[in-house]
Each structure stands twice: as structure tokens, then as C-alpha cells.
């Protein structure tokens, strides 16, 4: 029997960075097929290709043995492929029926919404869901919204159902309930693809598993026949040779994070007694599956959010967790945030201004009365050259015109111009090509050699392993284990997933 969904040799790059490098995938009707891999392994990208959202640069797609070309999500729907995304695509103030109608257009509204309601009720009773077609999305819990997404896709007639990290937003009980339903759907003949990074889900619910790493498919096997260790090793890969550098001297403690706790606006505890310290001349890596509080930790360190309790103590400065902006500036923390255009750059303003902004207050560019535009431009031109920022026609051009890697170099040029004592880098090489990535890593190593204390938060385990002197593994908002260099990759991998 031909495979329900078959992807062969799929390649896809974004801004020169290769996301999918000849990846292949094959799943059968009637099975739950897990797609396992670390963040950034290319799982979601590959499935977005299957759902018609990304056009692949190369490779072929076949449905039930027939090669097809997908011009967009609508074409994928016609081929009865449906995808439930990690971030729901629902219109909040609309009712369930209206949302389903939006995704499955009908010729007439009044009769269309009646048909849709009937179709929803049929699916809901078959799946034993508990959603009312007339309820508004914004009155529903996350788990209910997810049910709406699934119903929406099934009402469209999907026979190939792709679920992207469906359990990431659910409690354990909700997740088990959902996966049981998914399993039932598969038994009824649907081909279910379960994109996940949770080993337990794979072991319990999947009939087969495909493992991806670095944009490539590395293995396809039966999860019941393989051990958790085997799956972990395939997911995180073999330990690669570490680059040479001077051994760590063990300077005085520069940064101490003590019992940091942060509760998000919606009541979810994102940081729970996070504690660690970083010495001068040391890179402290924080590894973990994304969504375990790394983003909040980075935001608390750079001052984007105020923790609920706990301290961020800096040598010679004191606790800055709730300090004024003036005190924070004195601390001169270099911030390299993961989301460059939210926390590090003003895209609509010139490159030169983005470089100068951190030093305006020091008086380097003139007093309160008049700024020295010529000096700003001149320094910007120098920084652009020193940090090899490509694609700059003029320092007056908007920062948003730079590609990801060059925007990152711009951020680093600004942050390192102050010779920082403490560097906080969150996924500093995300979305960068190999060359830009190496340049960023060199800058971090150089700062370490100069005696800075560096916190490197990254979901890319390779990055953490190759750069860090010590590694803390973060899970559910806390550091659950610490590893000295050279760290055992498998042990870290286990610490990451055992608690996830």
C-alpha cells in the first residue's frame, strides 16, 4: 500500500540559513506517526511544507503515491491534509461555528453556518469532545480551543492530520486525553503526524517515529522496539569535538541569581526558585527544552520583566532584580536577546541611531542641547566595519532592512562597545547561517577571555555544549542539574526530558 503522505528530499532555506536539508518523511493511514527532534531541528518547517504553507526549494510531495504540488494551504486542504499549529489560528471574538466556517468557506452564509454547525456536532460527538458550536473562542480554555482547531480541520475532511506540538500547552491529564483521542482517530483510518519533542508521548502513543536533527531525517523506527536512551541519542546527536581554548581560571563570582521566581500575568509560574552563579571569565550555559522558563529568565536578567521574588546580584552593584533603570545602566549588562526586533533594535530607525542609543546618556555624542550627528554616523561606520555587518549601503538606512545575522552583529557591536562585565545572550545564533554563527561565538569567547561573566541561554544543545564552562539544565522554571565541562551530552539530554 502506498504511503498516505510522503516527502522526499525536501530542502528549504530562509535568508540563506538552511532549515531543511534534504529531509524525508513517510507516514501511513491508520497510524500515529511521531516526528521527534530538538527545537530548530526542522520538524515544524517540514510539516509546514506538507501543509502548503512553505514552498520547498527542492524535493517532492506525494499523497497515496500520487505526486502533487501544493500552491498553498487551500491546495493542501483539497488534498485532505490538515494541520493544527502550535499557535492557534482562531479569531477570538468569533464563535466556534464561525471560525470553522472561515476555514471551510460555504457559498451562502446562512445555510453555510447551519451545515457547519451540523458538521461540528457530528465530529464533536464522534470524538467525545465537549464544545458548543455557538460559544465564543475567547470564553474557552486553551484545551478547548485546541479541540476547535482539530474539529476545524476534520470538518474540512482531512485524512492526514498534522498536530504541531499539541501537548505543549496542555496539562498532563489534558495531554493524555488528547493523545488517546488522536490514537482513536488513527485507528479509524486517519494518518496522524504528531510533531513533538517529548519522549514519553512518543513511547506511549506513537506507532512509529521519525527523528530529525539539523534539518535532516536521521532515523525512522518503531518506538516500542527502541529504548529511551536510543531515542535521546538520535535526537541530540553524537558529541562533536570541542574547540580549543584556554582553560577556565575560576575567577570571583560576578553574577548570582538566587531563588528567582516569576509568575506570568495569567497566573502561570514561569520561574520557580531559579538559582545559579557565574564567575568572571566563565560562560555559564543554560540548556533545556524551550518553554521551560528560559525566555523569562533572560527577560528578568536584561530588565524586561520584574521577577516576583528572588535576587539578581551583581558584584560591586548589588541586587538589580527590581533596580531602577539608572542602577541597571551602571551595571552595564550587555543584552543579546533572542527576539532582536522586540528587545534589541528599533527597526524603523537608522542603523547609526540604533548603535548610538546606548551611549547617548554618557555624553559621548554631545550634551542635552544638541547631539553630534556627525560623530554618531562616524562611530556607526567604524562599528559596521569592525563587526563585519554586511548589507549596509548607508548607516542612515533602517535597521529592519538588515538580514537576521547582520542585525545580530549590529546588536553585538552596540552591546560590546561598552566592555561589559556581564553578558546575557539568549539564543544568540538563532536563525543565523554558519558564518554569522561562528562570528557570534567568537565574540562571546573573546568576552570570556576578557574576564566577563557570560550567561548563554540556548535551546540549541550543540551551542551550549561547545561554548560553556558549566551547564545548568532548566526544566519547569528551575535549574534541575549542573554539569562541568566537558559535559556528558546524553546525561544533559536525559536531564532535559526527564523533567519535561
Amino acid at each position, binding site marked *: 500500500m502506498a504511503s498516505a503522505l510522503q516527502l522526499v528530499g525536501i530542502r528549504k532555506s530562509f535568508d540563506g540559513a538552511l532549515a531543511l536539508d534534504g529531509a524525508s518523511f513517510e507516514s501511513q493511514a491508520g497510524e500515529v506517526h511521531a516526528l521527534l527532534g530538538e527545537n530548530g531541528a526542522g520538524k515544524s518547517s517540514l510539516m509546514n511544507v506538507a501543509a502548503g504553507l512553505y514552498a520547498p526549494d527542492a524535493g517532492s510531495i506525494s499523497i497515496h503515491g500520487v505526486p502533487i504540488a501544493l500552491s498553498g494551504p487551500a491546495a493542501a486542504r483539497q488534498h485532505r491534509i490538515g494541520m493544527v499549529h502550535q499557535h492557534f489560528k482562531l479569531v477570538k471574538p468569533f464563535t466556534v461555528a464561525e471560525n470553522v466556517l472561515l476555514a471551510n468557506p460555504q457559498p451562502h452564509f446562512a445555510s453555510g453556518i447551519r451545515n457547519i454547525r451540523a458538521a461540528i456536532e457530528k465530529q464533536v460527538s464522534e470524538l467525545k469532545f465537549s464544545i458548543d458550536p455557538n460559544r465564543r473562542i475567547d470564553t474557552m480554555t486553551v484545551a478547548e480551543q485546541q479541540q476547535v482547531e482539530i474539529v476545524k480541520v476534520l470538518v474540512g475532511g482531512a485524512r492526514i492530520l498534522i498536530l504541531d506540538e499539541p501537548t505543549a500547552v496542555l496539562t498532563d491529564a489534558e495531554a493524555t486525553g488528547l493523545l488517546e483521542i488522536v490514537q482513536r482517530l488513527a485507528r479509524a483510518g486517519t494518518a496522524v503526524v504528531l510533531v513533538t519533542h517529548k519522549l514519553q508521548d512518543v513511547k506511549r502513543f506513537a506507532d512509529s517515529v521519525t527523528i530529525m536533527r539539523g534539518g535532516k531525517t536521521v532515523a525512522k523506527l518503531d518506538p516500542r522496539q527502541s529504548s529511551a536512551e536510543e531515542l535521546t541519542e538520535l535526537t541530540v546527536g553524537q558529541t562533536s569535538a570541542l574547540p580549543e581554548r584556554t582553560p577556565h581560571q575560576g575567577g570571583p563570582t560576578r553574577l548570582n541569581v538566587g531563588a528567582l521566581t516569576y509568575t506570568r500575568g495569567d497566573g502561570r509560574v514561569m520561574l520557580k526558585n531559579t538559582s545559579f552563579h557565574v564567575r568572571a571569565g566563565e560562560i555559564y550555559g543554560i540548556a533545556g527544552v524551550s518553554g521551560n522558563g528560559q525566555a523569562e529568565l533572560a527577560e528578568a536578567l*536584561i*530588565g*524586561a520583566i520584574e521577577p516576583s521574588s528572588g535576587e539578581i546580584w551583581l558584584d560591586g552593584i548589588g541586587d538589580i532584580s527590581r533596580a531602577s*533603570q*539608572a542602577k*541597571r*545602566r551602571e551595571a552595564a549588562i550587555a*543584552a543579546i*536577546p533572542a527576539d532582536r*526586533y*522586540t*528587545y*534589541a*533594535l*528599533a*527597526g*524603523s*530607525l537608522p542603523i547609526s*541611531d540604533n548603535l548610538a*542609543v*546606548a551611549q*547617548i*546618556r554618557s555624553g559621548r555624542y*554631545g*550634551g*542635552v*542641547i*544638541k*547631539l553630534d550627528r556627525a560623530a554618531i554616523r562616524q562611530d556607526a561606520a567604524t562599528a559596521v566595519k569592525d563587526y563585519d555587518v554586511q548589507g549596509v549601503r548607508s548607516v542612515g538606512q533602517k535597521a529592519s532592512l538588515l538580514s537576521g545575522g547582520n542585525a545580530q552583529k549590529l546588536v553585538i557591536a*552596540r552591546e560590546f562597545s561598552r566592555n561589559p562585565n556581564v553578558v546575557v545572550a539568549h539564543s544568540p545564533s538563532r536563525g543565523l547561517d554558519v558564518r554569522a554563527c561562528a562570528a557570534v561565538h567568537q565574540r562571546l569567547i573573546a568576552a570570556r577571555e576578557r574576564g566577563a561573566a557570560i550567561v548563554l541561554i540556548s535551546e540549541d544543545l550543540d551551542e551550549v555544549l561547545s561554548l560553556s564552562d558549566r551547564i545548568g539544565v532548566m526544566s519547569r522554571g528551575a535549574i534541575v542539574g549542573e554539569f562541568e565541562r566537558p559535559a556528558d551530552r546524553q546525561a544533559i539530554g536525559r536531564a532535559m526530558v526527564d523533567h519535561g
Partner: protein
Amino acid sequence: MRQDLSPWKQAAFVGASLIFGLAISIAILAAAGIPPLTLASELAGVLTAENLRGVLVQAAPLILVGLGASLAFRIGFWNLGIEGQMIFGGIFAAAISIYDVGPQATRLLLMGSAAALGGALWVLLVVFLKNRFRVNEIIATLLLNYVAMYFLFHLLYGAWQDAKTAFPQSSPLRPFERLRDIGFGINSGLLIAIAGVLAAGWLIHLSRIGFYTRFISANPRMAKIVGVPVQTATVWIIAASGACCGLAGFVNVASQEGRLTQSYANGYVFSGVLIAFLSRNDPIVIAVVGFLIAVLFITGQTLQVFYQIPFTMVQMIEAIIVMAVASSEFLIRHRIRWLR
């Protein structure tokens, strides 16, 4: 969503919307009994030498409220309390006169400073409410206009009522407390407005605080992290906005009216927002647009006298133009595709 549109195309969109708005206005006026040709001759009449003086007197407060609105808008603070700030500017200036503060030679300077202070304090009250209690500034500034207005009435029907005439207005300002003509039919109020344009131009284009302002409006979260004193810069810019409006109140009291009246701030919220909107918050353009709106005002007054057209008609035309320009913003950001 459109990506970047060239500035020329953007200007073309704004221009086309403006013409569209004006066309509707002309049609409404025609329906109200003023044929377009009459309108044209009235407009031409406004621009003759003797009427031009009135236009320039009217332009001064309009330019000042335009500056006031634009400064606040630049930082994303929707200051709709222009009238309240004008009222307090006028009250503070009148207080200097009523309590006879300082020597004659510096009296006008004192009154102007007091007016700027009054306007700034009235808007800073809202900044406090916003920071401390998260009160929405659109509602707070707008409603505080009424508080200011009734406080003005309280003074004019009470302590500050003109004892001689018993009208609800203050006693007239003394001659040295008036903004006089400086020759060529130009009132010194206009000089204040021009000084305001230059000061605002300096503030936003050259000064350090203007640099900060650009970052705060482009990306407030990023601005805070890279060390921009967001709070301080915001407070100063908003205070400057209130000060401009306070000065507008002073100019009206000390030039046109010559005393504190009940209505010297009426209708300026709309005009200020309109001018800031049309000029895209640029001080030099504000001077030009302020002048054009003054022409509209004076024409409206003429029509009121000779054709019995209510003055609310002028405000309606303003509203139509605001809406037309606001919708051009939509066209600049979005591309419209007709389906079926």
C-alpha cells in the same frame, strides 16, 4: 499589509484623501446654500490685506495647539485635553494679572510662563493618573476638559467676575498685559507661535530628548532595555505638549479676547488633532497647516455673518477632513483587493 511605500506615494494618498474630504465639504456647503463660486470669492476675500491680520491672529493659537497635540502624539500619548490645558493656561495667565504679580515690564513674560506652567500641570495630572492607576489618557484628558471648563465657570461666576459689568467674564487686562501688534498687521501672539515652532523643531530634531522620543515611539520595550530614560523623556515631552496648549490659551486671552471669557478654548481639541494629523507631527508643516485652518476659521466666520451658516459647519468640515486623512492612513498601510 503593504511593505514600505515611498514617501511621495504616501503624500499622494494623503493629498488625494484631502481633496476628497474638501469635495464633500464643498458639496455640503452647496446644499446649505453657498454655491462653490461664492465660496471661492469669500476665500479670496479672506486673503486680502485687512482680513489677513485676522487670519494671522487666529493662526497663532491654532499653530500652538497643533504643536501641543503633535508632541504628545509623537510619544504615543493621546492628548485630547487641549481645551482643558488652554483653559488652565488662560487662568494662570489671568491670575498674574488679577493678583498684580511683578513689574509692568516683565508682566507679559510672567503671564506667558504661568500659562505654560498651567497647561503643563493640567496634563501632568493625567500622566500621574496613567502611571499610578493605569487610567486611559484618552478618556482622562478628554473628561478633564469639562472639569477645567466648570472650574473656569466657577471663577467667572464667582471670585473673578467683572465687578463693573457683572458679566461672567474677568475684568479686562491692562494695556501692558495685552499682546499687541508689532507692525505689518502682525500680532505678537504669532511670534510666540513661531518661537514655539522653532523650539519644537529643536526639541524633536536636534535635542537629546528628541532622540530618545524616536526610540520610545519606535520600540518602547527595546528603549527601556538599552537604557533610554523612558519615563523621564515621556514626562518632559508631555509637559511640553501641555505647555504649548497653555500658551495657546494665553495667546487667546491676551490678544483676541483681552480678558478671561467663557469660550476662549472652545473647539480647539479638534483643530489641534486635525493640524497634528495633517502635518504628520512635523513642526514646520504645522505652521503651514495651522495657517490654512485659520483661513478656514475666518471664512467660516464670514459665512456665519453673511449667510447665516452656523459655526458648527466649520467644525463639521474639520471632522470630515480628519476622517478623510485618517482613512488615507489605512490605505497607506493596506492594499485593497477587490474579490468578485
